[in-house]
């Protein structure tokens, strides 16, 4: 039994490593032939991280809430609260105070959502949407009063100091040198890794730590078990002595806090200024990563990286998005061959079709229009919902109304 476990442990990361190396190889090849050199540059991977973090934090926020059984459409509003609080208190007392107040503001907004949906029991979607509307109104109102008086504008805050950054000493320069060298494959790998260790904001690190932390709390602690229990079967949880209401209050407050931290990241790290509409629907994309990631922290993380990556490429070098299609085509076709070899015909067909489609689009279209890249996350999420529906395992009672002593009505 034990040896089997060891084997699995050894073989699975081994497989992943081989797969990652393979993808890198294909990417390096494609870069050679298309001249889209930005896919593996350290700039692109750094930007990916910067674009991914707000989505990641919003996604983790959505995860906390849905695991406790309440859908949080108010993520966007909670992010907006975070951008504003972060910028204003960051302007007054320095960036980390801004982060702190963003967290507090987000937690309070989350608590409002919790009181409305759990204590009073109104429709979760209505509450979330109303919070989005309130957040837009309140921040704009407050901007009109505070920002205008301090050299800002009704839609723009005064400039804010950013939290500090760090580069891993030695490693950063070393990888940078290899990337400069332009050796096939090796430089690509060095580029990606270099971007991840050079000029990284401390807040990025903080956000990344939230992924294992979320996993540990939700899956390894008693409290986490209660949270997930409340999302799967609140009636049974209650009967076993879990205070479902209280657990949900806490979980949704954490949800709001995380989303608001994502907002604060936008105004403090990504831009050093609050701008109206800065969140740009990222709260909803966060919601999408929860589905994409199958309601798991690691899944949310990879979803946010994927969506952040496309965003980063769109902003930096439009041809790269096009080149990525070639990568998708080759990898999907190779994967189809692999699936065929292990006799999983259906999967092979799906993978093959995806590969062919990507290949055709790559050959036919010169540049992928900007607008398509914008809604890429939304489209992917819809496709995942349709084609992977059977693999998805949402919390059973997420979205259902639960009141102590009443039957669950869906």
């Amino acid at each position, binding site marked *: 039994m034990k040896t089997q476990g060891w084997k699995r442990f050894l073989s699975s990361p081994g497989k992943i490593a081989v797969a990652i190396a393979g993808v890198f190889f294909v990417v390096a090849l494609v870069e050679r032939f298309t001249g889209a050199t930005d896919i593996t540059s350290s700039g692109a991977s750094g930007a990916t991280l910067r674009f991914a973090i707000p989505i990641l934090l919003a996604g983790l926020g959505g995860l906390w809430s849905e695991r406790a059984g309440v*859908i949080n*459409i108010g993520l966007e509003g909670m992010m907006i609260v975070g951008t504003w609080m972060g910028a204003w208190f960051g302007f007054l007392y320095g960036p980390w105070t801004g982060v702190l107040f963003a967290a507090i503001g987000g937690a309070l907004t989350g608590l409002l959502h919790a009181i*409305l949906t759990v204590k*009073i*029991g*109104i*429709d979760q*979607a*209505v*509450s979330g*949407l*109303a*919070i*989005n*509307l*309130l957040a*837009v*109104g*309140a921040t*704009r*109102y407050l901007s*009109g*009063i505070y920002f205008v008086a301090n050299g800002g504008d*009704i839609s723009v805050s005064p400039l804010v100091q950013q939290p500090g950054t760090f580069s891993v000493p030695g490693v950063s320069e070393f990888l940078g040198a290899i990337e400069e060298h332009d050796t096939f494959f090796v430089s690509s790998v060095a580029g990606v890794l270099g971007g991840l260790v050079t000029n990284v904001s401390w807040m990025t690190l903080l956000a990344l730590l939230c992924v294992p932390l979320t996993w540990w709390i939700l899956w390894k602690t008693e409290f986490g078990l209660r949270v997930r229990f409340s999302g799967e079967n609140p009636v049974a949880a209650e009967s076993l002595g879990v205070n479902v209401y209280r657990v949900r209050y806490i979980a949704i407050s954490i949800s709001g806090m995380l989303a608001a931290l994502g907002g604060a990241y936008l105004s403090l790290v990504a831009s050093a200024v609050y701008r109206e509409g800065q969140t740009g*629907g990222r709260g*909803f994309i966060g*919601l*999408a990563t929860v*589905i994409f990631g199958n309601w798991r922290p690691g899944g949310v993380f990879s979803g946010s990286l994927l969506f952040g990556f496309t965003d980063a490429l769109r902003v930096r070098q439009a041809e790269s998005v096009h080149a990525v299609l070639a990568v998708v085509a080759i990898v999907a076709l190779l994967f189809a061959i692999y699936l065929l070899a292990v006799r999983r015909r259906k999967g092979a067909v799906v993978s093959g079709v995806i590969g062919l489609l990507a290949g055709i689009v790559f050959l036919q279209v010169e540049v992928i*229009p900007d*607008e*398509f890249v*914008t*809604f890429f996350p*939304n*489209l992917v*999420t*819809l496709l995942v*919902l*349709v084609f992977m*529906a059977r693999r998805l395992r949402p919390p059973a009672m997420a*979205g259902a109304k639960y009141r102590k002593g009443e039957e669950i009505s869906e």
Partner: protein
Amino acid sequence: MNRSRIFWGIAAPVSAIAVSLLLASGILLLQGASPVGTFQLLFSYGFQPRNIVSELNQASAYYLAGIAAAIGFKMLLFNIGIDGQYRLAVFFAAVVGGAVSLPPVLHVLLIIVVAATVGGAWAAISGFLRVKYGVSEVISSIMLNFIAAGLVSYMLNPNRLGFQAEGSQNVSTPAIPESGWLPTIEVAGGRLYLFIFFAALVGVGYWILITKTVFGFNLRATGISFRAALSSGVNAPRMVLLTMVLSGATAGLVGVGTLLSDTHNYSLAFPSGYALTGLALALLGRNHPVGIAFAAFFWAFLERSAGILDLNGIPTEIVTMMQGTIVISIVVAYELIRRLNLRQQQAAVGSHQEESKEDDK
């Protein structure tokens, strides 16, 4: 019983509005402005005849969004996709309307039909995903809203379906020829869209459909219990799909009034955010065609009269916050009333049982 139902039905919206007024007053006081003076200002400006006309025009758009949401609500469907449906619909209606030339009435009708068809078709995606794959319509329509917005901004490009006048920065669709315009009525110094009567007709149609037809009965039945409807022979999945299409078709009409009587082309200046407005109005008007009409006018009134606040040093966003508060308070009020009724019923049943026990003795 009936009278108390009407009382509670009106009490909830009224108290929601009262709560929002209280909150706004509190904020105004904090800022050192006089609430009474501000509300007086709102009223006197909002009820100027010229402003009433423009409020009515805006209200006709809101009304349709409200009806679209209400159709969904009757089936317990949550159509957040109104935004995307409306945007794609008015875009294609503008494109088709600008590309053809037809006799006057036909041209207008064609534009309306295109808008309703596109809106319905886009909503059908959500309905289909829900019926076939069990995908929540809330999630799918949020995603579809983003996709619709992206598609429209892609197509609204001078190289594709868009049109850019020389020396102008604005891209729009080609202008609709005059045969595709709907005249306006000059009243009180303003121009009232003729489309408002069409919107009212849609409201009447909604009322007849829901209360007088078998389809409406099945729709409400499926909304109350999907399984019960299914087992009594209603094709429930089909009903879900059809409801979504009807809701989307109505949502598709939201921007048509402005298109036919004002701008005559589509540009990105067309506002967004109709989904939330529609849902709020359906809630405020209790899914009733007349209730939604009042709610729509109130909404348009708030937004129009907010314009005067800026001139007096009060941020107009106080109105947005009031709207948000109204949405929350209205659903809270409904929930509290529901619980109150439940308790009353339980008490009634309890006392009835007590009586019958005593009878047994």
